[in-house]
């Protein structure tokens, strides 16, 4: 892998000057050799309107955000595309709502054309109730899209074996769920997420299930390289405030991971000196030495 390049601006056309909070460039998320930006990735789904979304995006400091592809409707809603262009935030088109590999491949191709980026958040869902990833169609679609030159970031379950298969077919990252989309249940199986992160040679971005800031911090502590959050911010009572909380949590979790946590113990371990205690016979010092 070559050295990281600066982010290409293909997905943020029109040379828009970024107006999101300045980013210090420290410890960036790097995917496929491209510096993405801060390790918090925001999804745009769930915001009641574009104004609220803009506030949340700016507060989060993110440089990468997901968009969905839908039919142009006469008299349709305001364009999120224009907003992202203005903010200078890279769009990551997804294949949300696709239930087969075929649908997902076509949607990814439309996203590449519409957004001018070969990056795709690949989703192949099993059904519209659980919204869980369908691993067979997912791996098939990922394989196909990688061969078409896409940079594929697949949304997957927390199964380490599926994550490995996705990496095998050439995905640029893996994005395991913490819990079902929109559930806010956090990370249901931390050991699986840790196992995925430990083995992966590509970035691991926790996707789906984050409910509050501690969930995002935990993901980073478990070894994830980034966190993707949508509903937890856009549907919070105060989205910009939650966006800032998530950004702080991701940085805190990352710092804690790098700092190296203490091992868990079954019993207490005093942190104060155990010798020289008042009212005890002398001699302990000698024993301790």
């Amino acid at each position, binding site marked *: 892998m070559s050295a990281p390049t600066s982010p290409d601006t293909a997905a943020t056309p029109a040379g828009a000057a970024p107006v999101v909070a300045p980013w210090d460039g420290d410890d960036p998320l790097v995917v496929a050799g491209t510096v993405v930006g801060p390790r918090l990735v925001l999804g745009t*789904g769930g915001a009641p309107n574009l104004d609220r979304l803009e506030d949340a995006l700016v507060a989060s400091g993110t440089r990468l955000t997901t968009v969905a592809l839908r039919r142009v409707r006469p008299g349709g809603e305001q*364009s999120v595309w224009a907003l992202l262009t203005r903010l200078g935030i890279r769009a990551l088109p997804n294949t949300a709502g696709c239930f087969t590999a075929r649908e997902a491949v076509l949607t990814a191709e439309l*996203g590449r054309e519409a957004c001018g980026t070969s990056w795709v958040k690949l989703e192949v869902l099993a059904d519209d109730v659980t919204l869980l990833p369908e691993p067979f169609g997912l791996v098939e679609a990922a394989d196909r899209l990688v061969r078409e030159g896409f940079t594929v970031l697949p949304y997957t379950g927390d199964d380490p074996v599926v994550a490995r298969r996705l990496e095998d077919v050439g995905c640029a990252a893996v994005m395991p769920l913490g819990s079902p989309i929109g559930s806010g249940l956090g990370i249901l199986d931390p050991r699986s997420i840790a196992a995925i992160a430990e083995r992966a040679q590509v970035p691991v971005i926790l996707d789906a299930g984050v409910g509050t800031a501690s969930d995002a911090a935990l993901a980073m502590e478990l070894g994830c390289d980034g966190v993707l959050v949508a509903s937890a911010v856009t549907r919070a009572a105060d989205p910009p405030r939650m966006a800032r909380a998530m950004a702080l949590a991701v940085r805190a979790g990352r710092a804690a991971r790098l700092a190296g946590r203490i091992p868990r113990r079954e019993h207490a371990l005093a942190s104060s000196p155990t010798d020289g205690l008042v009212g005890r016979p002398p001699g302990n010092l000698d024993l301790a030495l």
Partner: protein
Amino acid sequence: MTETRTTDARTTDTRTADTRTADTEELPVVAAPPAPVVTVNGVPQPWDAGLTVATVVQGLLSDAATAPAGCAAGTPTGVAAALDDAIVPRGLWADTPVPAGARLEVVTAVQGG
């Protein structure tokens, strides 16, 4: 049922009653050839020989409040088109005719994920 004018109850073939009202009901119905249509985002609309992907997309976008960025240049970004499940690159829209009976999907980026 055509009115039977004869009083002869045994005559049930109405065609013998009055040749002026000879029954056409038994003739097969031959409909006028259907006007050719194209299906744009699931909605049928009239087809004509001059349709290109560019004209259809422009027609859609002029109706849409979305009016994505870059529309002024005539090559809107944030929008993609697929003709019968094959992506048509933006640069080819103007030169790609839309055949009668075709399905055209025109999509744009929206909030999601």
